[in-house]
């Protein structure tokens, strides 16, 4: 329950990674308003189903338009919004279950179209809202409520999958580094094409990975997260794959390919060569 919507009774658990993602998204959206002078109503946040999808109701500050649709279908909804009005700034927020399991079929087609939307994916390796079942990014052997004897599949390397699918902007982040994440989300919104910022956003209730991500020297735990070196060239797909294959959680931009036209430009290009008919001509083409 918030001041904004007193009937709304959803809460993230204390310490949930999604709080950090929310703050980063608010900062990115507000920065866009300031830097471009385009009002907030130009931004549409399309949310998936799950804890992270509730982001759209919990955003503080200037309110963008929201779309809280069906489980797994953020991408096609966002395609309709963006192609319905290409002037809009469309941001997808979804969790790893929504985006990478039931919604997986939509990633490659949007990558091939280079749909011009920015996706912020909150990865906690579990289905939190349904109380902790395993998700595609959960590691092999992980015990959850739906994998009581351990998860039988390998964990998905989401970053490698994005690169393989042809996503043209791929970044990786953790939710606790809000300033960095906010910068990446801003870059993703400005990227002319399909952009994914994949965020490790731990579930404090079912899969708390803060310590593993940041490391704990006292306990001898090495951090999973590591900064992508400054000399990495994000236009080099091969180098991006090397980072994705290096293990752990790289932080920063893996790939930024601005050489491919975004979807709306492709449609506009095709339309230029089309012979457009007036309505009267269409009817007349069936004259007896």
């Amino acid at each position, binding site marked *: 329950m918030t001041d904004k919507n007193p009937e709304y009774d959803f809460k993230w658990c204390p310490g949930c990674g999604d709080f950090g993602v929310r703050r980063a998204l608010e900062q990115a959206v507000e920065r866009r308003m300031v830097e471009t002078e385009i009002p907030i109503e130009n931004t549409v946040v399309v949310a998936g189903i799950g804890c992270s999808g509730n982001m759209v109701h919990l955003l503080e500050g200037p309110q963008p*338009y929201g779309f809280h649709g069906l489980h797994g279908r953020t991408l*096609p909804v966002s395609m309709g919004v963006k192609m*319905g009005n290409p002037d809009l700034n469309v941001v997808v927020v979804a969790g790893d279950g929504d985006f990478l399991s039931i919604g997986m079929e939509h990633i490659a087609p949007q990558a091939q179209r280079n749909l011009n939307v920015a996706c912020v994916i909150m990865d906690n390796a579990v289905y939190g809202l349904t109380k902790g079942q395993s998700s595609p990014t959960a590691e092999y052997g992980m015990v959850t409520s739906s994998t009581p004897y351990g998860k039988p599949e390998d964990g998905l390397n989401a970053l490698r999958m994005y690169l393989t699918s042809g996503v043209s902007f791929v970044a990786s982040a953790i939710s606790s580094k809000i300033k960095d994440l906010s910068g990446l989300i801003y870059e993703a919104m400005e990227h002319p094409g399909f952009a994914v910022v994949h965020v490790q956003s731990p579930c404090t209730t079912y899969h708390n990975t803060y310590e593993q991500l940041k490391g704990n020297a006292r306990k001898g735990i090495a951090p999973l997260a590591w900064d992508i070196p400054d000399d990495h060239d994000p236009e080099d797909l091969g180098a991006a794959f090397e980072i994705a294959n290096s293990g752990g959680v790289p932080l920063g931009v893996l790939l930024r390919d601005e050489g491919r036209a975004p979807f709306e430009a492709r449609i506009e290009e095709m339309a230029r060569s089309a012979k457009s008919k007036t309505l009267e001509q269409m009817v007349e083409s069936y004259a*007896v």
Partner: protein
Amino acid sequence: MEKKNDFVVRFAGEGGQGFLTAAVGFATANNQAGYHTQTFATFPSQIMGGPTWMQARISTSPVLSRGDDLDVLVTFNRENYDLHKDEVKDGGVIIYDSEAFQLEDDSKSLGVPFDRLGKSTGNPRAANMVVMGTLAGLVDMPQETLQEFNRKRFSRYGDKVVQANGKALDLGREAAKASGFRLGQLNDPVRPEYDQIMLNGNDAICLGAAAVGVEFFIGYPISPATTILVWMENNLVGSGKFAYQASSEIESITSAIGAGYAGKKAMTATAGPGFSLMSEGIGLAWMAEIPVVIAAVQRGGPATGLPTKTEQSDLLMALNPAHGDVRLPVIAPGTVEECFYAAVQAFNWAERYQGPVILLSEHALSERQQNIRKPDLSSLTVENRRVYTGGNGYQRYDGFELSPMPIPGTPGSYVANASEHDGMGDTTHLPQRHIQMTERRFSKLKLLEDGVYESDGTDSAVALMPWGGSKGPAFDAYRQLAQSGVDIGWYYTMYLNPLPPALLEELRAKELVLVPELNYLGQFSSVLRSLGVRAESITQYTGLPFKVGDLVRIVSERIGVRKGEGVAV
């Protein structure tokens, strides 16, 4: 020999032999000459081959049904001769390729070597023109009618083709003359005073959508709705327009909803299996109150079923395509002409009540070529949605009735939510909210009670009331029954939900409403019964449309039964 007002010819062979072109060509030529025409096709689900047939009905008055019995059967092989010969009426003729197979002379069969004669003209594809020439000879159609068609249709392929085709037409005609077979001359056409166009039901849906201002179309290939996608890809181009082949029907419906949310007049088209995949999405559009038109072109059976056959078995799904409390507006055209106006009204309804509308067509309409009155574009009513124009902080979903809809990019941010929501669209679980929102969603259907209906013989206690594509054969049957003195009335509407209230009132006063429909369950009559109408179905589930004669017989039997029960008819 007596002159004829009506002529039915069927072409039967293997898919890919090109005779579908002959049937459409023959219909087109006659249409150009001023006759009314309708074609009907049925074929297996494969690119080439398999038993396929197409028939054309030519008449001096508007054609309502495909024609029960054949004046001429054109058959390209023995198998199809055996399959179709019994449907040829007495005095009819069977034309066959005498070099492909031999028939014992049964005083009905006319062998013509179409293929050889066609090739002899220099155009290897002229066999169809030979057949058309033979047909013209049998009914004494002026040769010029076909030559005119030949020039109009084939001049873009060059003079050589036109000349060869002309020769083929003559060779075919000579073959008919030499045989001695004659069917009787067709009466002169009564050319309608209005301008006409000739097209199939799917094209008519597309034209209607274009006329009412469709801006966004997305679909996935599926029989028999694919031609809508193809038409849109070709024609819905230019600034502010988007037509696109999606990667699935799930993507189609959710994208169309996204575009509707963004302010566009959006549409998708599908059939059986794709319609099933759209279920959840259609529920989303109902829940979040987003205008979108879903054209569902019915085919046969559940699952993959009969992709290329006709059936009317998706009505219950059209009314309730999604889980939870939903009841969708459904418009089901019954003729090619109605396909045009149904599309116009489907968009008007979607925009007016801000929600999804099902445009329920069927295979028989999608494949049928028919001449219709050219739509008067200047007289169309085009409705646009009520758009919110105020500032931020707007509660779009406040209250129990329709309210203006904000469009992203302008002030009035809200959340379109698939979960139950409050006025702003934020999720809620409060009982009073669910009551308000449920009643609000259903109350909007009241805005759609402006549908019109046809009626005749309204004093009768018994009425015939088909829906969709069964309208044509049912109306032919009704006319025959009424002419022979049977006391029966006629009702018809394409607005199946909500039904026009005055129609429902009339139907409730009947002793019996007979509903011819192409499904096993008797879907529409069950809906009518739930609304307090004493309705019974006449069902058929063959994958083919009704025959008029069958309906006349069954209706007579049913009324006889009711008489026996002491019901006044």
